């Protein structure tokens, strides 16, 4: 246990020492001597970001409810703290008990963004552990390192560093793994129990043990095959889903330090029915499952009682699509009027945002409203299946401005398939039209935020075979758009091209990138997701030194016949559905929302669902 004296020697000199001090409200400090399994839940970014992650909060709750399991939290120390820790010989520790990470049985990383990978290695190293899974295997007491979260749908680039991945929803599988672990460990000899555990774990649905698969490559560098080591190991790993959704956690740890999302979170729905072709989340979180209204209301009530939060966020991929959204908002704003509860509705759609919604959440609004038309022209929006019309957007802007919002933010992408300069300039027209409405409703002071990001074709989506758009093309289009949107009333933000290139390579990469990530980390890459810390030249050097070309992964059109690095991960959505959607996209054909009709993506058949999507009936 890291003593107070040591903490007092290093914390006064670092920024935001509260990040490392623990003792937060609702923290669970269980008795180490009474637990058979000790898990360190790790988010590979700084405290304020990690504490905003709902997935880890869910697992923290579930694991700590088990009498013989404990779960604690650990986040990436900021560079100043890292330096102080290394200088003082303080290993990475968990917040609840201040015990070194090495003392835990599992370290579970939530992998939500590829640019966090260097932090994963750094945290393992700071813990005093070998970063390579094979080296840790040789140390019987070294914790198992488990990965979960969005990136596991293509975890190949970090396969060398993890013992096991949990693909999909973890609520049930994490307990199955816990029981298996305790059982195998008590039965097998100390030197072999981990191998035995991994072998048996591979048989659990949703579990991917990368060391049990060998990847063979073609001379051209593409993958020939991903081969399971033996017959008992599945050739494809199907993600886990939980249906119906288990009750949400209502006693989360409340941070002292201001988190990025500093509010209580209740998930109202999982999955999205829209089928936008570029959207990774929309494809991998199927099927849609809505939470019953009374369950949401109960959860909000408990959450507010247990935390005292002033703001609540209703979480889903598309909150305004939730069937009972209006009665939910109406009830919440009335019930909690005295405490001035603010309600945050992220992930709004411009075609389901109504005057009613605007009116209800306007009462105690804290932030601006964000919408994502993504493409400037109707034609291009049909290509990507983003079913928002210009009309929808204008009506939404009207509803928002008329209800008192002075600031609206719009998200767009550049580099979408079939995109022309005409489509790009149409973004400017759309933005100016929205501003026009704002000025009409509220006068000259209104602001429109415009965020333009380069499109990265993601695994498991209809566009997964596409290359990243050429950097020069992107620059040309950015310049044209910048010229058309030059005005004080418009706040423009752009994605950084070197970030985009790296993101594309890592999200579409194969196992060989493990060497590159290792090298980049050795060269000093840390907190790559932070603009002020990101050093693209380190990554360029790492690619060169490991003999790999990021363009091979990011900027290559792939044929249908190619074995993609993520082909052995099964999201339940059929590959030929994705290909058909891709072709429909190129033709500019719209595919309907699941709520309107089933497109046979494969999920319904895969899990033999009676109802898909699982939406609330009329009564909610």
């Amino acid at each position: 246990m890291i003593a107070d004296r040591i903490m007092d020697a290093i914390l006064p000199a670092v920024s935001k020492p509260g990040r490392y001090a623990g003792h937060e409200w609702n923290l669970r400090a269980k008795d180490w001597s009474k637990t058979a399994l000790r898990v360190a839940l790790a988010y590979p970014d700084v405290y304020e970001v990690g504490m905003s992650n709902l997935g880890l909060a869910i697992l923290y709750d579930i694991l700590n409810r088990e009498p013989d399991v404990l779960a604690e939290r650990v986040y990436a120390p900021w560079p100043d703290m890292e330096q102080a820790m290394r200088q003082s010989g303080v290993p990475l520790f968990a917040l609840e008990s201040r015990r070194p990470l090495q003392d835990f049985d599992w370290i579970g990383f939530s992998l939500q963004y590829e640019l966090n990978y260097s932090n994963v290695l750094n945290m393992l190293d700071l813990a005093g552990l070998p970063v390579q899974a094979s080296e840790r295997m040789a140390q019987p007491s070294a914790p198992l390192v488990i990965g979960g979260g969005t990136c596991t749908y293509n975890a190949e680039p970090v396969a060398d560093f993890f013992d096991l991945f949990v693909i999909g929803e973890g609520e049930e599988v994490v307990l199955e793994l816990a029981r298996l672990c305790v059982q195998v460990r008590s039965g097998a000899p100390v030197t072999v129990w981990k191998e035995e555990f991994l072998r048996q774990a591979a048989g659990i649905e949703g579990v991917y043990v990368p060391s049990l698969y060998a990847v063979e490559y073609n001379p051209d560098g593409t993958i020939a095959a991903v081969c399971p080591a033996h017959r008992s190991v599945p050739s494809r790993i199907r993600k886990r889903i939980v249906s119906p959704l288990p009750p949400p956690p209502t006693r989360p740890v409340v941070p002292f330090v201001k988190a990025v999302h500093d509010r209580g979170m209740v998930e109202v729905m999982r999955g999205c029915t829209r089928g936008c072709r570029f959207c990774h989340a929309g494809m991998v979180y199927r099927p849609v499952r809505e939470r019953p209204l009374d369950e949401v209301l109960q959860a909000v009530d408990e959450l507010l009682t247990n935390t005292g939060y002033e703001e609540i966020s209703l979480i889903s991929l598309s909150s305004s699509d939730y069937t009972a959204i209006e009665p939910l908002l109406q009830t919440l704003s009335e019930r909690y009027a005295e405490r001035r509860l603010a309600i945050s509705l992220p992930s709004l759609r411009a075609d389901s945002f109504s005057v009613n919604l605007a009116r209800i959440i306007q009462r105690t609004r804290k932030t601006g409203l964000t919408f994502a038309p993504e493409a400037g022209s109707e034609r291009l929006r049909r290509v990507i299946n983003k079913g928002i019309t210009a009309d929808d957007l204008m009506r939404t802007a009207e509803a928002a401005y008329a209800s008192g919002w002075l600031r609206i933010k719009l998200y767009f992408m550049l580099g979408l398939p079939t995109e022309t300069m005409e489509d790009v300039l149409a973004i400017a027209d759309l933005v100016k039209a929205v501003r026009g409405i704002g000025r009409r409703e509220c006068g000259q002071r209104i602001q429109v935020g415009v965020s333009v990001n380069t499109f990265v074709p993601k695994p498991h989506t209809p566009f997964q075979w596409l290359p990243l758009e050429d950097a020069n093309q992107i620059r040309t289009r950015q310049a044209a758009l910048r010229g058309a949107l030059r005005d004080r009333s418009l706040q423009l933000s752009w994605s950084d091209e070197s970030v985009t290139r790296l993101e594309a390579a890592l999200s579409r990469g194969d196992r060989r990138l493990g060497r590159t990530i290792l090298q980049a980390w050795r060269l000093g890459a840390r907190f790559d997701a932070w603009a002020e810390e990101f050093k693209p030249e380190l990554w360029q050097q790492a690619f060169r030194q490991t003999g790999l070309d990021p363009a091979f992964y990011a900027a290559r059109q792939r044929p249908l016949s190619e074995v993609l690095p993520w082909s052995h991960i099964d999201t339940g959505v059929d590959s030929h559905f994705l290909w058909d959607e891709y072709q429909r996209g190129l033709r500019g054909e719209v595919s309907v929302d699941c709520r309107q009709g089933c497109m046979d993506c494969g999920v319904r058949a895969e899990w033999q669902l009676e109802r898909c999507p699982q939406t609330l009936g009329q009564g909610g």
Partner: protein
Amino acid sequence: MPTDSLWRFRIVFGKGTEVKYISHLDLVRAWQRALRRADVALAHSQGFSPHPRIFFASALPVGVTGRAEMLEALLERPMEAPEIAARLGTQLPCGLRVVSVAEVPLAAPSLPTQVAAAEYEAQVETKIAGEQMQSRLDQLVATPSLARHMERDGKARDYDLRPLIQRLWLVGRREAVYVVGMRLRADPHGTGRPDEVMAALGFAAQVRAIERTQLLLRSE
């Protein structure tokens, strides 16, 4: 809902070692949430972004504990002081504790404007003899001026630390740890910082802990 009726309470509280590293803004948020959990009906400001009307006497520097810190809260529904204290007792995070709760006249001047000075105790680990320690304190008190330069938020300021030191004394000693007491001015014209006083005494690296023992209000 009638908003004209308000009740004002002063809460004296301790900020202990478990939470000494949280900033003042973190503390404000933590108190707002604790009061909400305790179901205390806080009054809120008007306008687009209503916030609870809670006012702190004086911000405590990060790393310093507080034995008798003060805040005031405006309530829109009355409650008895013991009731507030009891409810808070189960809703305060580890490290924060209620020392007292008392109702205060609504018309009294605002709490932050009433603060005149603050007293601190600093624990110093040093092998120097008792007489030497006392003479260091005496020497500092005898120094007419201590010119200092501070840069914060991009602004540079020159000031004199000496007039901010109102009293300086030796509280006690246990083996190699001395406890130095001080009363420092704390008002809009100047706020003395205990770490600067300890540095001026030559103990910058030997301070083990600093605690604010009390806040002194103008009316007292």
